[in-house]
């Protein structure tokens, strides 16, 4: 008991020693919200001034994600796909097709079945409008994943897992990685650079929508897969 008390006091001292330089450093920064702070006057100013025409995306965040920093986003998509691989490796086999469904009440069943298509359409809208309005592949993908988790909570996991053939799930989860690889390699003949998008506006928009759809579908399927894997461990 005494040992635990000592550990708490020691942790408190450690955090106080961490807090002092953090507080000091934060107070030395220019206050948040100043338009002429260094954070707003270099790279960001360039993105705001020329980003829309250079990237072909009126939503500058999407422009940064898919164009200026496409390599970062490719890494991001790889991280979440690798996370799913690792989680399902730890969860073990049989986690995809657990039988956990208690029969839902008719009200829950009906409402979830009614809501599903609307959530799916909204997710698709958010995905394909990512270059004009707030949103994009990741946000739409999370909506899609949330819809799949909601359906599997109400209707049972196997009814969601049976939506597509078992072997197709891994291709859906890899959709983001595949779309990014494809567009990266297409950039080589079209612009001479990996991840280069063509100048031609229609073609560029089409490729950006391919990227967004890949991120959205891949992200949604991976999120649902993470949930299935974790829920499968519990029931086994």
């Amino acid at each position: 008991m005494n040992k635990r008390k000592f550990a708490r006091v020691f942790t408190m001292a450690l955090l106080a020693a961490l807090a002092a330089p953090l507080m000091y450093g934060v107070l030395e920064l220019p206050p948040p919200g100043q338009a002429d702070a260094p954070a707003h006057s270099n790279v960001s100013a360039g993105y705001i001034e020329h980003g829309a025409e250079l990237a072909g995306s009126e939503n500058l965040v999407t422009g940064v994600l898919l164009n200026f920093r496409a390599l970062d986003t490719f890494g991001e998509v790889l991280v979440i796909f690798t996370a799913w691989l690792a989680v399902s490796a730890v969860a073990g086999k049989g986690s995809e097709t657990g039988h956990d469904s208690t029969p839902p009440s008719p009200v829950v069943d009906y409402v979830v079945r009614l809501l599903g298509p609307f959530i799916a359409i909204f997710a698709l809208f958010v995905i394909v409008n990512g270059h004009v309005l707030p949103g994009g592949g990741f946000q739409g993908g999370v909506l899609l994943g949330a819809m799949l988790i909601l359906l599997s909570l109400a209707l049972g996991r196997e009814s969601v897992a049976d939506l597509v053939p078992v072997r197709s799930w891994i291709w859906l989860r890899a959709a983001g990685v595949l779309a990014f690889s494809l567009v990266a390699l297409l950039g080589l003949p079209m612009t001479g650079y990996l991840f280069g998008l063509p100048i031609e506006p229609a073609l560029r928009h089409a490729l950006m929508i391919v990227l967004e759809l890949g991120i959205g579908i891949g992200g949604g399927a991976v999120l649902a897969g993470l949930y299935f894997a974790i829920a499968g461990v519990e029931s086994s």
Partner: protein
Amino acid sequence: MTVVSSLASHIDYLVAVSLFLTGAWILLTSGNLVKKVIGLNIMETSVFAFIVTTGMVDEGAPPLVAAGLQGPFASPLPHALVLTGIVVAVSVTSLALVLILRIKAELGSVELDEIALAPKADDSAGQSNQRGSADE
């Protein structure tokens, strides 16, 4: 007086720092693995809040150029970086949770105190069990 006004103008950053310290406290002192993951998530959230706050502009508009909005625009770069951070945070959290579930299945507890005691009680049983599954 200057210290007080400086504290007041940096209140957003200070909230992020205190959230970070709260998360670190939970991560370091809690003996429950799930609570440690929650602490880690609070720390991650504080970093996201801090980075997004640096991109904020007073009276600014979101960085959507053609939506009829007038400048000054918020900086788009922190938003894109935080999106990457959130994806990594989700990946780390899910991997941590599934590892905790396996620990619970193998050792019967998510409390560090009880886990430290568990292997001594049935050490040979646990080892033979592991060998058996490896042979399969």
